[in-house]
């Protein structure tokens, strides 16, 4: 039975249960992620991390959230009243909505009703996530603009440029997946990644079949969620707090929530598109490991893997400069994604022709591929060498921009110290206080050496 058909006859109460369950899942994941992130980063930096509130400090984020809710809500005088209020709401809602199309598990029975662990399965499911991430940027952009203060405005300009550029790379990387699985529906894309390749050695996941798409998606999902090393909109060394500098209390909490929910959503989408969704690899759909609620377990494990990657990146990499970041997006990710997309389309065409046995035989295909490679080689040879001209008189400059002395610099030997004769003090030293005596003796001894 199709997932869409399974979900179509859900009664209203079941839909409500699913909505509440997804909301609760995302909020709990946020609370968990904040703690997990702080603990893992702390461990990477050889310090204990939060360990006071609750068992092993695991309730720290809950305590912080409660504290945030009771803080004073401040609105700057220059702020745009309505937009300032609207921005955190706009950033939060799409983050939650995007999760509705993610398949969390297979067919289960809830209170006697057969259904799939997914809120809704649209024929254009992947587009829902892209649309939601496009709307989520409005929250960041509007918050920066409405704050009426220069740093948040700079931050929102950065966010707008950043998300638009990385959305293009993300969309292009998803295109190859969509082409490979003949569908835009998330449940169908997860469903096509069953089985194995290479005589059963590897699961037929899109991450393995389409590795370039996978890498581009993983890079652009970090850029899309404004996380380190791409957290330029909230670079605290340059922009105070970025777009949420002027926010406090629950509005600030909403931004925090939106950021972490977005992380969970893009990780869940990565799981669905590239790691086979909720299915356990190597076994079929009728196996015990893929039945009932087991799917949810595999899904959560895979998603946590991506979330750990986020934390790991944050603990490891320094923040990129803005122009480096834009160059990475436009001059590296987008062209590679385009070339890869064409290559995948060509490979699919060749396979289709060979399988159906019409028109194209193997030798023709090989000739076409060989001609293609020859053309690439020719272009590579014809490209002029680009070598930077080295000025022989150039002052060597370090990364900091200051001239450094050459490594073979001869430092003249320092002259031997002359011994300075020190007069012997009279014998009544014992009457002085102890501290003074010690100090004066030290000075004296220094002089004698």
């Amino acid at each position, binding site marked *: 039975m199709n997932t869409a058909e399974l979900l179509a006859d859900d009664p209203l109460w079941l839909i409500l249960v699913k909505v509440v369950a997804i909301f609760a899942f995302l909020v709990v994941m946020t609370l968990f992620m904040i703690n997990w992130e702080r603990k893992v980063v702390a461990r990477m930096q050889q310090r204990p991390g939060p360990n006071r509130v609750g068992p092993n400090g695991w309730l720290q984020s809950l305590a912080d959230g409660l504290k945030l809710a009771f803080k004073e809500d401040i609105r700057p005088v220059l702020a745009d009243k309505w937009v300032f209020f609207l921005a955190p709401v706009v950033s939060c809602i799409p983050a939650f909505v995007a999760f509705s199309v993610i398949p969390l598990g297979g067919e289960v029975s809830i209170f006697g009703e057969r259904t799939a662990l997914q809120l809704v399965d649209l024929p*254009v499911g992947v587009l829902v996530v892209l649309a939601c991430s*496009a709307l989520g940027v409005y929250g960041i952009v509007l918050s920066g603009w409405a704050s009426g203060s220069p740093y948040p405005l700079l931050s929102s300009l950065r966010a707008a440029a950043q998300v638009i550029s990385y959305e293009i790379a993300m969309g292009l990387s998803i295109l190859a997946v969509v082409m490979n699985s003949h569908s835009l529906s998330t449940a169908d894309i997860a469903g096509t990644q069953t089985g194995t390749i290479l005589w059963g050695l590897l699961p037929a996941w899109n991450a393995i079949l389409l590795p370039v798409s996978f890498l581009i998606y993983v890079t652009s999902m970090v850029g899309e969620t404004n996380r380190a090393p791409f957290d330029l909109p909230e670079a605290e060394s340059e922009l105070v707090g970025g777009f949420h500098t002027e926010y406090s209390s629950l509005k600030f909490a909403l931004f925090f929530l939106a950021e972490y929910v977005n992380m969970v959503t893009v990780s869940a989408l990565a799981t669905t598109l590239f790691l086979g969704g909720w299915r356990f690899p190597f076994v079929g759909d009728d196996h015990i490991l893929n039945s009932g609620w087991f799917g949810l377990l595999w899904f959560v494990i895979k998603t946590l893997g991506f979330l750990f990657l986020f934390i790991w990146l944050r603990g490891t990499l320094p923040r990129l400069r803005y122009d480096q970041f834009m160059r990475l997006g436009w001059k590296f990710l987008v062209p590679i994604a385009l070339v890869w997309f064409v290559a995948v389309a060509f490979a699919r065409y060749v396979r289709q022709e060979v399988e159906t046995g019409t028109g194209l035989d193997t030798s023709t295909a090989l000739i076409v591929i060989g001609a293609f490679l020859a053309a690439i080689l020719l272009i590579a040879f014809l490209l002029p060498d680009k070598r930077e001209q080295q000025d022989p008189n150039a002052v060597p400059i370090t990364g900091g921009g200051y001239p450094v002395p050459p490594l073979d610099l001869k430092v003249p030997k320092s002259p031997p110290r002359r011994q300075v004769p020190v007069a012997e003090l009279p014998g009544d030293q014992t009457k002085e206080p102890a501290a003074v005596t010690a100090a004066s003796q030290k000075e004296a001894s220094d002089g004698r050496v």
Partner: protein
Amino acid sequence: MIASLLAQQPDAVERVVDTVTTGEAVAFWILGPLALAGALGMLFARNAVHSALWLVLTMLSLGVLYMVQQAPFLGFVQIIVYTGAIMMLFLFVLMLVGRDSSDSVVEVLRGQRLAAAVIGVGFAGIVVASVARALTDVEPVGLAAQNTQNGGNVANIGEALFTDYLFPFELTSALLITAAVGAMVLAFTSRTGKDAKKTQRELVEERFRGNRPGSLPGPGVFATANSVATPALLPDGSVASESLSELIETTAKERLEDDVAEVSGTGHQPDAHALKGESS
């Protein structure tokens, strides 16, 4: 096992209907006024960013309306492309312009309001007349077939786009590429040649070879002025010419006379006896 959506789904035909359902009517009467309110708000908002936000509301309402009317692909593409990309670029430019810039109320073109009103009403009349005929006289058919058979909504749109409408599609792409190349030509700066832009490294080395490796003196911000147009004063009261900007018109020297006098010590001095209450 989940079958591919591209496979035929015979029982899906029952769910896709050609007639207007109650839910669709309810959605229309909610989304229609919202879209209209967004359009009016866009026209009458004083602030440019508020205008853009009202337009976003209109586009979102239209997108949801498409989804309700069995066109999910069109609906989401409307949201992604128009709301997500195009309006975001609008906002980007508006924010660069500045948040406090509102429309000027001075009319530059004489009689433009009257002409705009007449032409606008005329255009609305033409559109309503042509669309009204299509809504009443033409009977919609084939929606269920298009949305269920031969791969469903997305596959059928793709097929139509790349077979029957291939030429308009290619023309549109040529238009977009022309626009992109034009933008690149306008924004292009040469790295080589006579008027090449210097790299960061070249600038650094140039600075170290020059007379002043450090930064130039900042503007003179005194207690009496907080403008960068105020030049810095040297200890003898003369103006530090390096602190002047080439771009900003500097404050007139006459307005600085008090400051100059104070810095050079020739002006009014504080009265040491003032605190004791004795008049000197």
